[in-house]
Protein backbone atom coordinates (compact mmCIF):
# COMPACT_ATOMS: atom_id res chain seq x y z
CA UNK A 1 0.00 0.00 0.00
CA UNK A 2 2.82 2.38 0.81
CA UNK A 3 4.45 2.00 -2.56
CA UNK A 4 1.60 3.89 -4.21
CA UNK A 5 3.46 7.20 -4.07
CA UNK A 6 7.01 7.73 -5.25
CA UNK A 7 9.30 8.60 -2.34
CA UNK A 8 10.51 12.13 -2.54
CA UNK A 9 12.27 14.69 -0.43
CA UNK A 10 12.30 18.21 -1.74
CA UNK A 11 14.43 20.92 -0.23
CA UNK A 12 13.84 24.19 -2.01
CA UNK A 13 15.46 27.40 -0.94
CA UNK A 14 13.76 29.50 -3.57
CA UNK A 15 10.32 28.69 -2.27
CA UNK A 16 11.29 29.35 1.31
CA UNK A 17 10.09 32.94 1.41
CA UNK A 18 6.92 32.53 -0.56
CA UNK A 19 5.69 29.30 0.99
CA UNK A 20 3.23 29.39 3.81
CA UNK A 21 4.42 26.04 5.08
CA UNK A 22 7.91 25.24 6.27
CA UNK A 23 7.27 21.49 6.43
CA UNK A 24 4.72 19.41 4.64
CA UNK A 25 4.64 15.68 5.18
CA UNK A 26 2.27 13.69 3.03
CA UNK A 27 1.40 10.02 3.58
CA UNK A 28 4.98 9.40 4.64
CA UNK A 29 5.96 5.80 5.32
CA UNK A 30 9.34 4.48 6.36
CA UNK A 31 10.10 0.78 6.58
CA UNK A 32 13.26 -0.92 7.79
CA UNK A 33 14.46 -4.40 7.10
CA UNK A 34 15.13 -6.15 10.40
CA UNK A 35 16.49 -9.60 9.59
CA UNK A 36 13.88 -10.90 7.15
CA UNK A 37 11.10 -8.88 8.80
CA UNK A 38 9.90 -5.51 7.56
CA UNK A 39 9.45 -3.03 10.41
CA UNK A 40 7.19 -0.08 9.71
CA UNK A 41 8.51 2.92 11.65
CA UNK A 42 6.12 5.44 10.08
CA UNK A 43 2.88 4.54 8.33
CA UNK A 44 1.16 7.13 6.20
CA UNK A 45 1.97 10.12 8.40
CA UNK A 46 0.50 13.40 7.18
CA UNK A 47 0.92 16.85 8.71
CA UNK A 48 2.02 20.37 7.94
CA UNK A 49 3.95 22.97 9.88
CA UNK A 50 3.50 26.66 9.10
CA UNK A 51 6.45 28.99 8.72
CA UNK A 52 7.50 30.32 12.13
CA UNK A 53 5.40 27.77 13.98
CA UNK A 54 6.66 25.87 17.04
CA UNK A 55 5.30 22.33 16.92
CA UNK A 56 6.00 19.58 19.43
CA UNK A 57 5.78 15.88 18.70
CA UNK A 58 5.02 13.62 21.65
CA UNK A 59 5.19 9.85 21.43
CA UNK A 60 6.41 6.83 23.32
CA UNK A 61 9.70 5.24 22.29
CA UNK A 62 9.32 3.33 19.07
CA UNK A 63 6.80 5.74 17.62
CA UNK A 64 9.12 6.68 14.79
CA UNK A 65 9.82 10.23 16.01
CA UNK A 66 13.54 9.98 15.43
CA UNK A 67 12.96 8.36 12.04
CA UNK A 68 10.72 11.28 11.11
CA UNK A 69 13.46 13.78 11.96
CA UNK A 70 16.06 11.71 10.07
CA UNK A 71 13.92 11.74 6.94
CA UNK A 72 13.30 15.49 7.23
CA UNK A 73 17.04 16.08 7.72
CA UNK A 74 17.81 13.93 4.67
CA UNK A 75 19.60 11.20 6.65
CA UNK A 76 17.04 8.47 5.89
CA UNK A 77 15.03 7.76 2.74
CA UNK A 78 11.27 7.44 2.89
CA UNK A 79 9.75 4.19 1.60
CA UNK A 80 6.73 6.04 0.29
CA UNK A 81 5.08 9.44 0.42
CA UNK A 82 6.60 12.88 0.49
CA UNK A 83 8.44 15.05 2.96
CA UNK A 84 8.86 18.63 1.78
CA UNK A 85 11.21 20.93 3.67
CA UNK A 86 11.16 24.50 2.49
CA UNK A 87 14.56 25.90 3.37
CA UNK A 88 17.61 24.71 5.26
CA UNK A 89 17.36 22.22 8.11
CA UNK A 90 19.46 21.90 11.26
CA UNK A 91 19.23 18.99 13.66
CA UNK A 92 19.81 19.02 17.43
CA UNK A 93 20.35 15.73 19.25
CA UNK A 94 19.74 14.50 22.76
CA UNK A 95 23.26 14.63 24.16
CA UNK A 96 27.00 14.69 23.63
CA UNK A 97 26.56 15.42 19.97
CA UNK A 98 29.32 18.02 20.02
CA UNK A 99 32.57 16.88 18.43
CA UNK A 100 34.70 16.24 21.54
CA UNK A 101 38.05 17.20 19.97
CA UNK A 102 36.88 20.70 19.04
CA UNK A 103 36.36 23.65 21.38
CA UNK A 104 32.94 25.22 21.76
CA UNK A 105 33.94 27.82 19.18
CA UNK A 106 35.50 25.11 16.99
CA UNK A 107 32.22 23.20 16.84
CA UNK A 108 30.36 26.31 15.76
CA UNK A 109 33.09 27.25 13.27
CA UNK A 110 32.95 23.81 11.67
CA UNK A 111 29.23 24.25 11.03
CA UNK A 112 30.01 27.65 9.49
CA UNK A 113 32.75 26.10 7.33
CA UNK A 114 30.51 23.29 6.09
CA UNK A 115 27.85 25.85 5.28
CA UNK A 116 30.42 27.71 3.18
CA UNK A 117 30.99 30.80 5.32
CA UNK A 118 34.26 32.57 4.41
CA UNK A 119 37.21 31.64 6.65
CA UNK A 120 37.87 35.22 7.71
CA UNK A 121 34.37 35.72 9.10
CA UNK A 122 34.00 32.41 10.95
CA UNK A 123 35.77 33.30 14.16
CA UNK A 124 33.76 36.47 14.74
CA UNK A 125 30.49 34.82 13.74
CA UNK A 126 31.10 31.92 16.11
CA UNK A 127 31.71 34.31 19.03
CA UNK A 128 28.52 36.19 18.22
CA UNK A 129 26.49 32.98 18.05
CA UNK A 130 27.90 31.72 21.36
CA UNK A 131 27.03 35.12 22.84
CA UNK A 132 23.45 34.69 21.67
CA UNK A 133 23.10 31.51 23.74
CA UNK A 134 24.87 33.11 26.73
CA UNK A 135 28.07 31.18 26.25
CA UNK A 136 30.39 34.17 25.77
CA UNK A 137 33.68 33.46 27.55
CA UNK A 138 33.44 29.71 27.03
CA UNK A 139 34.72 29.70 23.43
CA UNK A 140 37.92 27.80 24.24
CA UNK A 141 36.33 25.11 26.42
CA UNK A 142 36.05 21.59 25.12
CA UNK A 143 32.76 19.70 25.45
CA UNK A 144 34.00 17.54 28.34
CA UNK A 145 34.71 20.71 30.30
CA UNK A 146 31.09 21.85 29.98
CA UNK A 147 27.95 20.84 31.88
CA UNK A 148 25.07 19.13 30.06
CA UNK A 149 23.07 22.34 29.79
CA UNK A 150 26.05 24.29 28.47
CA UNK A 151 26.72 21.64 25.84
CA UNK A 152 23.17 21.99 24.60
CA UNK A 153 23.61 25.78 24.44
CA UNK A 154 26.65 25.23 22.23
CA UNK A 155 24.67 22.72 20.15
CA UNK A 156 22.00 25.40 19.74
CA UNK A 157 24.63 27.91 18.61
CA UNK A 158 25.98 25.34 16.16
CA UNK A 159 22.51 24.76 14.74
CA UNK A 160 22.05 28.53 14.37
CA UNK A 161 25.41 28.62 12.57
CA UNK A 162 23.92 26.41 9.89
CA UNK A 163 21.64 29.35 9.10
CA UNK A 164 18.66 27.04 9.06
CA UNK A 165 15.06 27.97 8.44
CA UNK A 166 13.82 24.86 10.21
CA UNK A 167 15.18 23.52 13.49
CA UNK A 168 14.55 19.83 14.15
CA UNK A 169 15.11 18.91 17.79
CA UNK A 170 15.32 15.29 18.95
CA UNK A 171 14.59 15.18 22.71
CA UNK A 172 17.30 17.82 23.16
CA UNK A 173 16.79 18.43 26.88
CA UNK A 174 15.84 14.90 27.92
CA UNK A 175 19.08 14.24 29.79
CA UNK A 176 19.18 17.55 31.69
CA UNK A 177 18.20 18.32 35.28
CA UNK A 178 14.95 20.23 35.83
CA UNK A 179 16.55 23.65 36.36
CA UNK A 180 18.88 23.52 33.35
CA UNK A 181 15.94 22.35 31.26
CA UNK A 182 13.76 25.22 32.44
CA UNK A 183 16.48 27.75 31.60
CA UNK A 184 17.03 26.23 28.18
CA UNK A 185 13.29 26.37 27.46
CA UNK A 186 13.40 30.12 28.06
CA UNK A 187 16.53 30.43 25.94
CA UNK A 188 14.99 28.49 23.08
CA UNK A 189 11.74 30.47 23.16
CA UNK A 190 13.70 33.74 23.15
CA UNK A 191 15.75 32.66 20.15
CA UNK A 192 12.62 31.46 18.37
CA UNK A 193 10.90 34.84 19.03
CA UNK A 194 13.90 36.81 17.79
CA UNK A 195 14.38 34.77 14.62
CA UNK A 196 12.04 33.48 11.98
CA UNK A 197 12.73 29.87 12.82
CA UNK A 198 10.27 27.05 12.43
CA UNK A 199 10.79 24.44 15.14
CA UNK A 200 9.78 20.79 15.23
CA UNK A 201 10.53 19.59 18.73
CA UNK A 202 10.36 15.89 19.63
CA UNK A 203 9.96 14.90 23.28
CA UNK A 204 8.32 12.25 25.43
CA UNK A 205 7.49 14.81 28.10
CA UNK A 206 3.95 16.21 27.70
CA UNK A 207 4.55 19.19 30.03
CA UNK A 208 7.61 20.23 28.07
CA UNK A 209 5.58 19.98 24.85
CA UNK A 210 2.73 22.11 26.20
CA UNK A 211 5.11 24.67 27.63
CA UNK A 212 6.91 25.19 24.34
CA UNK A 213 4.60 24.47 21.44
CA UNK A 214 1.90 26.34 19.56
CA UNK A 215 0.66 22.87 18.74
CA UNK A 216 1.32 19.37 20.08
CA UNK A 217 1.03 16.27 17.89
CA UNK A 218 0.65 12.93 19.67
CA UNK A 219 2.19 10.05 17.74
CA UNK A 220 0.81 6.53 17.89
CA UNK A 221 3.23 3.69 18.62
CA UNK A 222 4.72 1.39 16.01
CA UNK A 223 3.96 2.22 13.31
CA UNK A 224 3.94 5.95 14.02
CA UNK A 225 1.38 8.38 12.71
CA UNK A 226 -0.36 11.47 14.07
CA UNK A 227 -3.05 10.10 16.40
CA UNK A 228 -4.12 13.30 18.07
CA UNK A 229 -3.46 17.01 17.90
CA UNK A 230 -3.78 19.77 20.49
CA UNK A 231 -3.60 23.52 19.84
CA UNK A 232 -2.12 25.15 22.91
CA UNK A 233 -3.63 28.62 23.27
CA UNK A 234 -2.17 29.48 26.68
CA UNK A 235 -0.52 32.92 26.69
CA UNK A 236 3.30 33.05 26.80
CA UNK A 237 5.41 33.01 28.94
CA UNK A 238 4.03 29.78 30.31
CA UNK A 239 5.16 28.25 33.56
CA UNK A 240 5.78 24.54 33.84
CA UNK A 241 3.98 24.64 37.20
CA UNK A 242 0.81 26.42 36.12
CA UNK A 243 -2.43 24.45 36.66
CA UNK A 244 -3.73 25.28 33.14
CA UNK A 245 -0.62 23.77 31.59
CA UNK A 246 -0.88 20.72 33.83
CA UNK A 247 -4.48 20.09 32.71
CA UNK A 248 -3.57 20.09 29.02
CA UNK A 249 -0.43 18.03 29.64
CA UNK A 250 -2.49 15.56 31.66
CA UNK A 251 -4.91 15.06 28.75
CA UNK A 252 -1.98 14.47 26.39
CA UNK A 253 -0.38 11.99 28.78
CA UNK A 254 -3.67 10.05 29.03
CA UNK A 255 -3.89 9.92 25.27
CA UNK A 256 -0.25 8.79 25.10
CA UNK A 257 -0.92 5.99 27.58
CA UNK A 258 -3.84 4.76 25.48
CA UNK A 259 -1.58 4.72 22.42
CA UNK A 260 1.05 2.69 24.24
CA UNK A 261 -1.46 0.24 25.75
CA UNK A 262 -3.63 -0.43 22.71
CA UNK A 263 -1.14 0.32 19.99
Amino acid at each position, binding site marked *: MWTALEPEIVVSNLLALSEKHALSVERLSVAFLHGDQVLLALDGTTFEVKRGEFVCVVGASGSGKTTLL*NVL*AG*LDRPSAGRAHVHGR*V*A*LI*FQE*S*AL*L*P*WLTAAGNVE*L*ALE*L*RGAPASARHKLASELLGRV*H*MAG*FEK*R*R*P*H*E*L*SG*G*MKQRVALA*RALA*QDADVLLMDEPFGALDA*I*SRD*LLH*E*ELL*RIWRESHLTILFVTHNAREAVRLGDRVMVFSSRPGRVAHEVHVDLPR*PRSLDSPELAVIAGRITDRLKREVTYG
Partner: protein
Amino acid sequence: MAELASQLDLPEVAPPPPHPVRKSIERTWSGLWPKVGAILLTLIVWQLVVWSGWRPQSALPGPWPVLNRLASDLSHLDFYAGMGVTLRRAALGYAIAAAAAIVVAILIARIELARRSVGSLLVGLQSMPSIAWLPFAILLLQRSESAITFVVVMGAAPAIAAGLLSGIDHVHPLLIRVGRAMGADGLRLYRHVIIPAALPAFVGGLKQGWAFAWRSLMSAELLVAAANQTSIGQLLQSAGKLLDMQQLLAIMIVIFVIGIAIDSLFSDLDRLVRRRWGLLGSEA
Protein backbone atom coordinates in the same frame (compact mmCIF):
# COMPACT_ATOMS: atom_id res chain seq x y z
CA MET B 1 14.61 38.43 34.75
CA ALA B 2 14.69 34.97 33.30
CA GLU B 3 17.68 35.88 31.13
CA LEU B 4 19.48 37.36 34.07
CA ALA B 5 18.94 34.11 35.95
CA SER B 6 20.34 32.11 33.09
CA GLN B 7 23.43 34.30 32.96
CA LEU B 8 23.99 34.06 36.68
CA ASP B 9 23.59 30.33 36.46
CA LEU B 10 26.53 29.78 34.12
CA PRO B 11 29.63 30.31 36.31
CA GLU B 12 28.21 27.96 38.92
CA VAL B 13 27.70 25.01 36.62
CA ALA B 14 31.06 25.54 34.88
CA PRO B 15 33.85 23.25 36.16
CA PRO B 16 36.97 25.21 37.23
CA PRO B 17 39.69 25.59 34.57
CA PRO B 18 42.70 23.24 35.02
CA HIS B 19 46.17 24.53 36.02
CA PRO B 20 48.32 23.08 33.24
CA VAL B 21 51.81 24.15 34.36
CA ARG B 22 51.77 22.95 37.97
CA LYS B 23 49.98 19.81 36.94
CA SER B 24 52.58 18.94 34.30
CA ILE B 25 55.49 19.41 36.75
CA GLU B 26 53.76 17.18 39.29
CA ARG B 27 53.06 14.61 36.62
CA THR B 28 56.65 14.65 35.32
CA TRP B 29 58.04 14.11 38.81
CA SER B 30 55.54 11.41 39.76
CA GLY B 31 56.30 9.67 36.46
CA LEU B 32 60.08 10.04 36.94
CA TRP B 33 60.89 8.83 40.44
CA PRO B 34 59.76 5.20 40.01
CA LYS B 35 61.93 4.99 36.88
CA VAL B 36 64.98 6.43 38.63
CA GLY B 37 64.38 4.01 41.50
CA ALA B 38 64.13 1.03 39.14
CA ILE B 39 67.42 1.98 37.41
CA LEU B 40 69.23 2.31 40.75
CA LEU B 41 67.85 -1.03 41.90
CA THR B 42 69.00 -2.71 38.68
CA LEU B 43 72.52 -1.28 39.06
CA ILE B 44 72.69 -2.47 42.68
CA VAL B 45 71.52 -6.01 41.88
CA TRP B 46 73.90 -6.13 38.92
CA GLN B 47 76.84 -5.06 41.08
CA LEU B 48 75.90 -7.59 43.77
CA VAL B 49 75.83 -10.43 41.21
CA VAL B 50 79.28 -9.37 39.93
CA TRP B 51 80.66 -9.20 43.49
CA SER B 52 79.29 -12.67 44.24
CA GLY B 53 81.89 -13.99 41.79
CA TRP B 54 79.30 -16.12 39.97
CA ARG B 55 80.98 -15.40 36.60
CA PRO B 56 84.46 -14.02 35.85
CA GLN B 57 84.74 -10.27 35.19
CA SER B 58 85.44 -10.86 31.50
CA ALA B 59 82.11 -12.69 31.10
CA LEU B 60 80.11 -10.35 33.30
CA PRO B 61 81.69 -6.94 33.90
CA GLY B 62 80.22 -4.69 36.60
CA PRO B 63 78.11 -1.58 35.90
CA TRP B 64 80.97 0.86 36.52
CA PRO B 65 83.31 -0.38 33.71
CA VAL B 66 80.34 -0.72 31.35
CA LEU B 67 79.16 2.84 32.01
CA ASN B 68 82.74 4.05 31.57
CA ARG B 69 82.91 2.24 28.25
CA LEU B 70 79.59 3.75 27.23
CA ALA B 71 80.93 7.23 28.07
CA SER B 72 84.01 6.67 25.93
CA ASP B 73 81.88 5.26 23.08
CA LEU B 74 79.73 8.35 23.24
CA SER B 75 82.81 10.55 22.78
CA HIS B 76 83.58 8.90 19.42
CA LEU B 77 82.02 10.23 16.23
CA ASP B 78 81.85 6.70 14.68
CA PHE B 79 79.41 5.69 17.33
CA TYR B 80 77.05 8.52 16.44
CA ALA B 81 77.40 7.63 12.77
CA GLY B 82 76.21 4.09 13.61
CA MET B 83 73.34 5.45 15.65
CA GLY B 84 72.49 7.80 12.79
CA VAL B 85 72.32 4.93 10.29
CA THR B 86 70.05 2.93 12.58
CA LEU B 87 67.75 5.83 13.38
CA ARG B 88 67.55 6.79 9.71
CA ARG B 89 66.47 3.25 8.87
CA ALA B 90 63.95 3.27 11.69
CA ALA B 91 62.49 6.59 10.53
CA LEU B 92 62.30 5.56 6.88
CA GLY B 93 60.77 2.13 7.56
CA TYR B 94 58.35 3.54 10.09
CA ALA B 95 57.24 6.35 7.78
CA ILE B 96 56.59 3.93 4.91
CA ALA B 97 54.74 1.60 7.28
CA ALA B 98 52.54 4.41 8.61
CA ALA B 99 51.70 5.72 5.13
CA ALA B 100 50.88 2.24 3.81
CA ALA B 101 48.85 1.43 6.92
CA ILE B 102 46.72 4.57 6.57
CA VAL B 103 45.88 3.78 2.95
CA VAL B 104 45.13 0.12 3.68
CA ALA B 105 43.01 0.89 6.75
CA ILE B 106 40.86 3.44 4.91
CA LEU B 107 40.39 1.07 1.96
CA ILE B 108 39.34 -1.71 4.33
CA ALA B 109 36.96 0.62 6.14
CA ARG B 110 35.38 1.89 2.92
CA ILE B 111 35.21 -1.24 0.76
CA GLU B 112 33.41 -4.34 1.99
CA LEU B 113 35.38 -6.64 -0.34
CA ALA B 114 38.69 -5.26 0.96
CA ARG B 115 37.51 -5.87 4.50
CA ARG B 116 36.67 -9.50 3.80
CA SER B 117 39.93 -10.14 1.94
CA VAL B 118 42.74 -7.99 3.34
CA GLY B 119 41.01 -7.33 6.67
CA SER B 120 41.09 -10.98 7.66
CA LEU B 121 44.77 -11.24 6.75
CA LEU B 122 45.66 -8.29 8.95
CA VAL B 123 45.27 -10.27 12.17
CA GLY B 124 47.51 -13.03 10.87
CA LEU B 125 50.14 -10.55 9.69
CA GLN B 126 50.09 -8.86 13.07
CA SER B 127 50.91 -12.06 14.93
CA MET B 128 53.60 -13.11 12.47
CA PRO B 129 57.14 -12.32 13.74
CA SER B 130 58.47 -9.87 11.19
CA ILE B 131 61.92 -11.48 11.20
CA ALA B 132 60.27 -14.42 9.42
CA TRP B 133 60.15 -12.08 6.41
CA LEU B 134 63.95 -11.63 6.41
CA PRO B 135 65.00 -14.64 4.30
CA PHE B 136 62.31 -13.67 1.81
CA ALA B 137 63.49 -10.06 1.82
CA ILE B 138 67.14 -11.10 1.28
CA LEU B 139 66.29 -13.32 -1.69
CA LEU B 140 64.04 -10.63 -3.11
CA LEU B 141 66.22 -7.56 -2.52
CA GLN B 142 69.68 -8.95 -1.67
CA ARG B 143 71.49 -7.94 1.51
CA SER B 144 70.61 -4.31 1.03
CA GLU B 145 69.12 -1.34 2.81
CA SER B 146 65.83 -2.18 1.12
CA ALA B 147 65.73 -5.64 2.70
CA ILE B 148 66.07 -4.11 6.16
CA THR B 149 63.45 -1.47 5.42
CA PHE B 150 61.13 -4.18 4.11
CA VAL B 151 61.32 -6.11 7.37
CA VAL B 152 60.67 -2.98 9.42
CA VAL B 153 57.64 -2.13 7.30
CA MET B 154 56.23 -5.63 7.61
CA GLY B 155 56.72 -5.44 11.37
CA ALA B 156 55.09 -2.08 11.97
CA ALA B 157 52.41 -1.66 9.30
CA PRO B 158 49.88 -4.30 10.46
CA ALA B 159 49.77 -2.91 14.01
CA ILE B 160 49.30 0.67 12.78
CA ALA B 161 46.60 -0.35 10.29
CA ALA B 162 44.77 -2.40 12.91
CA GLY B 163 44.77 0.54 15.32
CA LEU B 164 43.39 2.98 12.77
CA LEU B 165 40.83 0.48 11.50
CA SER B 166 39.47 -0.24 14.95
CA GLY B 167 39.31 3.52 15.56
CA ILE B 168 37.29 4.05 12.37
CA ASP B 169 35.01 1.10 13.15
CA HIS B 170 34.25 2.40 16.62
CA VAL B 171 33.36 5.99 15.75
CA HIS B 172 30.11 6.72 17.56
CA PRO B 173 27.24 6.59 15.02
CA LEU B 174 25.81 9.76 16.54
CA LEU B 175 28.93 11.70 15.51
CA ILE B 176 28.51 10.49 11.94
CA ARG B 177 24.85 11.58 12.01
CA VAL B 178 25.96 14.97 13.34
CA GLY B 179 28.52 15.35 10.58
CA ARG B 180 26.07 14.39 7.87
CA ALA B 181 23.36 16.62 9.32
CA MET B 182 25.83 19.53 9.06
CA GLY B 183 26.37 18.70 5.42
CA ALA B 184 29.66 16.78 5.55
CA ASP B 185 29.79 13.85 3.18
CA GLY B 186 32.40 11.57 1.58
CA LEU B 187 35.89 12.96 2.07
CA ARG B 188 34.73 15.89 4.18
CA LEU B 189 33.05 13.48 6.59
CA TYR B 190 36.37 11.62 6.86
CA ARG B 191 38.37 14.79 7.32
CA HIS B 192 36.16 16.53 9.86
CA VAL B 193 34.56 13.67 11.75
CA ILE B 194 35.78 10.11 11.20
CA ILE B 195 39.57 10.61 11.22
CA PRO B 196 39.60 12.94 14.25
CA ALA B 197 37.22 10.61 16.09
CA ALA B 198 39.50 7.65 15.31
CA LEU B 199 42.67 9.50 16.34
CA PRO B 200 43.03 8.15 19.91
CA ALA B 201 42.93 4.54 18.63
CA PHE B 202 45.23 5.50 15.76
CA VAL B 203 47.84 6.92 18.15
CA GLY B 204 47.63 3.66 20.12
CA GLY B 205 48.34 1.78 16.89
CA LEU B 206 51.25 4.12 16.06
CA LYS B 207 52.76 3.44 19.48
CA GLN B 208 52.47 -0.29 19.12
CA GLY B 209 53.77 -0.04 15.56
CA TRP B 210 56.89 1.74 16.82
CA ALA B 211 57.63 -1.09 19.26
CA PHE B 212 57.34 -3.61 16.43
CA ALA B 213 59.45 -1.47 14.09
CA TRP B 214 62.28 -1.12 16.60
CA ARG B 215 62.35 -4.86 17.34
CA SER B 216 62.29 -5.76 13.66
CA LEU B 217 65.08 -3.31 12.89
CA MET B 218 67.37 -4.71 15.58
CA SER B 219 66.79 -8.28 14.38
CA ALA B 220 67.42 -7.31 10.79
CA GLU B 221 70.57 -5.32 11.57
CA LEU B 222 72.01 -8.23 13.54
CA LEU B 223 71.58 -10.51 10.55
CA VAL B 224 72.23 -8.22 7.59
CA ALA B 225 75.42 -6.20 7.15
CA ALA B 226 74.12 -4.01 4.38
CA ALA B 227 76.34 -1.82 2.22
CA ASN B 228 79.13 -2.00 4.81
CA GLN B 229 77.34 0.59 6.93
CA THR B 230 78.08 0.67 10.62
CA SER B 231 74.83 0.46 12.51
CA ILE B 232 73.90 -0.21 16.13
CA GLY B 233 72.99 -3.79 15.24
CA GLN B 234 76.34 -4.28 13.49
CA LEU B 235 78.24 -2.81 16.46
CA LEU B 236 76.41 -5.25 18.71
CA GLN B 237 77.21 -8.14 16.39
CA SER B 238 80.93 -7.31 16.18
CA ALA B 239 81.20 -6.80 19.96
CA GLY B 240 79.82 -10.32 20.30
CA LYS B 241 82.33 -11.72 17.82
CA LEU B 242 85.22 -9.98 19.58
CA LEU B 243 84.00 -11.34 22.95
CA ASP B 244 83.97 -7.71 24.16
CA MET B 245 81.31 -7.94 26.87
CA GLN B 246 81.77 -4.33 28.06
CA GLN B 247 81.11 -3.01 24.57
CA LEU B 248 78.17 -5.40 24.16
CA LEU B 249 76.45 -4.24 27.34
CA ALA B 250 77.11 -0.58 26.54
CA ILE B 251 75.38 -0.98 23.17
CA MET B 252 72.48 -2.86 24.73
CA ILE B 253 71.97 0.09 27.07
CA VAL B 254 71.88 2.43 24.05
CA ILE B 255 69.27 0.24 22.31
CA PHE B 256 67.20 0.15 25.46
CA VAL B 257 67.37 3.91 26.01
CA ILE B 258 66.48 4.78 22.41
CA GLY B 259 63.51 2.42 22.53
CA ILE B 260 62.24 3.92 25.77
CA ALA B 261 62.84 7.53 24.70
CA ILE B 262 60.81 7.18 21.51
CA ASP B 263 58.14 5.14 23.23
CA SER B 264 57.71 7.88 25.83
CA LEU B 265 57.26 10.44 23.03
CA PHE B 266 54.36 8.34 21.80
CA SER B 267 53.01 8.10 25.34
CA ASP B 268 53.05 11.89 25.60
CA LEU B 269 51.26 12.16 22.26
CA ASP B 270 48.75 9.58 23.42
CA ARG B 271 48.09 11.50 26.65
CA LEU B 272 47.80 14.79 24.80
CA VAL B 273 45.23 13.40 22.37
CA ARG B 274 43.25 11.69 25.11
CA ARG B 275 43.17 14.84 27.22
CA ARG B 276 41.97 16.91 24.29
CA TRP B 277 39.34 14.32 23.41
CA GLY B 278 38.11 14.26 27.02
CA LEU B 279 39.00 10.58 27.47
CA LEU B 280 41.10 10.95 30.60
CA GLY B 281 38.17 11.06 33.01
CA SER B 282 38.93 12.84 36.28
CA GLU B 283 42.24 14.25 35.05
CA ALA B 284 40.49 16.28 32.38
